[in-house]
């Protein structure tokens, strides 16, 4: 990946600046790393995937023969003899959003070349992601033990199980992939690959702290998608 060097270039703000950048040569997004631009476009494509899932969910929910189950009843948790609706999911959401915060801090310390802080914060983010996936596994096993399956559901419409497992599963896969990469990047940060521009294992491209920001974009996106899934499944 090539480094942007636009020190001498004056970027104009607002619409005028945008149209000038668009009309100019070489790059459309001035000073934006190739990988970062790629991640934005990939996330746009991924947005369409999740939109298709959620729109299908709305359509599926609208056309079932049996009533949709009551979310606060299905997702309730029995703690100390009290039925608390949405307890687990509140904790899960809190953990995931917090991990977004640590990710943002990791990006900041990365650009400040603070290798240690950056590495620890990436690790913290990864652990947050792991806790999220773990709690999701707990929730899945709880629902499964209660008899919810992708093809059937004792609380009401069978499509509830189908859509729930498919969409949270797809999102959970995104989180898991993110966690794997977070661990790899934490190792690379501690090992100093980004400080020494060490070449990558597969791509043989030089390491740079911008990679942490790129992974951060993905991580924030996964969090944002979760907010929508949360709203559609647990609050509707």
């Amino acid at each position, binding site marked *: 990946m090539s*480094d942007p060097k636009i020190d001498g270039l004056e970027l104009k703000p607002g619409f005028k600046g945008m149209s000038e950048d668009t009309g100019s040569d070489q790059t459309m997004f001035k000073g934006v790393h190739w990988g970062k631009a*790629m991640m934005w476009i990939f996330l746009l494509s991924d947005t369409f995937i999740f939109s*298709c899932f959620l729109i299908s969910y709305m359509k599926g929910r609208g056309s079932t023969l049996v009533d949709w189950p009551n979310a606060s009843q299905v997702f309730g948790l029995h703690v100390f003899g009290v039925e608390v609706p949405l307890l687990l999911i509140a904790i899960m959401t809190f953990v995931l959003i917090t991990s977004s915060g640590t990710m943002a801090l990791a990006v900041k310390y990365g650009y400040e070349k603070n290798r240690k802080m950056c590495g620890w914060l990436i690790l913290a983010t990864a652990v947050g992601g792991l806790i999220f996936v773990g709690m999701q596994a707990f929730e899945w096993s709880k629902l499964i033990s209660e008899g919810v399956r992708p093809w059937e559901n004792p609380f009401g419409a069978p499509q509830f199980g189908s859509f729930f497992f498919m969409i949270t599963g797809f999102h959970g896969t995104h989180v898991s992939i993110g966690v794997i990469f977070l661990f790899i990047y934490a190792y690379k940060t501690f090992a100093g690959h980004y400080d020494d521009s060490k070449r990558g294992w597969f791509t043989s491209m030089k390491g740079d702290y911008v990679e942490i920001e790129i992974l951060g974009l993905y991580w924030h996106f996964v969090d944002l998608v979760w907010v929508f899934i949360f709203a559609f499944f647990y609050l509707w």
Partner: protein
Amino acid sequence: MSDEYENKTGYQAQSSETISSGSGGGSRTASDIDYVRPAEVTDQDLYHGHSFITKWVFCQDAKVIGVQYFLLATFTGVVGLILSWLMRLQLGFPGAAGFMTAEHYYQFVTMHGMIMVVYFLTALFLGGFGNYLIPLMVGARDMVFPYLNMVSFWSFFVAVGVLLASFFVPGGPTGAGWTLYPPQTILEGTPGSGWGILLMCISLILFVAGFTMGGLNYLITVLQARTRGMTLMRMPLTVWGIFTATVLAMLAFPALLVGALMMTLDNVLGTSFFMPTIIQAGEILEYSGGSPILFQHLFWFFGHPEVYIVALPAFGIVSDLISVHSRKNIFGYRMMVWAIVGIGGLSFFVWAHHMYVSGMNPWFGFFFATTTLIIAIPTAMKVYNWIITLWRGNIRLNVVMLWCLGFIVTFVNGGITGIFLGNVSIDVPLSDTYFVVAHFHMVMGIAPLMVIMGAVYHWFPLVAGRFLNETLGKWHFWLTFLGAYSIYFPMHYLGFIGVPRRYFEMYDSPYMTSAVGMNEFISMAAFIVGAAQFILIFNIIKTLKTGKSAGSNPWKANSLEWLTPSVPPEHGNWGDKLPVVHRWPYDFNVPGAKEDFITQTTPPSDVVGTEVEKT
């Protein structure tokens, strides 16, 4: 554009008004008017292969990947061609192919459709031409993520493998039609309802994953890795076509991915996303409450942009071919660009015109008919611009030009029947007849194929350094052109008399007598056209070693791909110095110029006194 910017880049200096001939005493020197902004990014860091495997197999060079895509897509295309032969054998001469049962026929229809649309045309245009031409045409050393690009091809390779493997699993490939409509796709009784459809869905998911990797490469290369002086509005229309098609693909393939995934779950886990309550053989199946129309929406939200994913690169490539071979600038370049972008945008709002008879709300039909017919405006603009480009041009009537002319005629033909089918009231009686088959084969089968052929004859001298044989090329063209019309013109008529498509045999219906002669004729033509394609393969093999040597820039074209230091271009494309671009690629026959073409890299100080376009 601000004055300051124009002064900096020398934009003004390039227009003919400000450079008067013989202005030696003027205040501007050659280096002033040739000014191009300095490089914004450092030179790309490339991985150079050392062994046979890293150079030719797991290669990260976009040109090799392009050729790999081209060869594999052509191979699957030949499989699709053979399937179409078998189908035509059955339709023209029922029972002539002894082994063919109705199930086989449905399977061949399905696989022919899916292979040709996705694994042949899409892969060839975007994977093949996109990989080869984008970096060369925008002046980049390679795609921006060469490693990802390599993984993209090998995902496609695995996808093709999984697809072809479905011929050898129990039950054979799926026979539900290329649209894979549930519920029949996964019901007992449809051929390939177990393994076949599973492998088809897996293969499509792999294809989408692989394509996404490639597509990100194409987009970022165009947006962020152009060379100095290459503005978006100086890019060849080929790049515009492939770029816009890739944007479409990045936004449309997600719907296919989601549809394929949900179908797989319905098939394997017994969920009911798309499956309503069904009684089969007196028995209520376990499915209930799903919506088959949901799949149709998902499929066509992918499916219609897919038509333009195939068509837009064809539009772009044919514009360049016509311009080069009629030695004229493309008429209305900006209009052409905006038409491509406009068609791309509109293509996301027309999908339900494939679903007029699906039982959706009739008001939807009204809306989608309107948007569909609006697409006729930008496409007609493009057709007029091609014709005006040809008008009074210095036309070279070579094989490339023949394919371009064939394309224009075929595209107009297919486009006009599209206006018929876009109207709900005409579509309803014509739907599921051979009229539809004729329409889409004309407009998205034969027309883009003509462009591919033209492009092969045009760019073969770049890839191989030798010309293809013109005589064989003319035989190839005329057999294909006349043959294709012999196939599809009668099919329109078959559709009008009501012959339904996807029928294995007409049995005792009235069509058995009225359509039989025509079906025989169509089948004969199909055999000849199919065989004619092997002329091209023979031509390529023959000329690869013995063809007339082309040298550099044999067509006297302007665009960057012909201006590499070595032909065929090497890894890294440009030797040690990237090209600097001063103009658009369409400066042909400029009044006052020494030659009839001015390449994109010719500096303005070399063309002082000529009436070059201000680009």
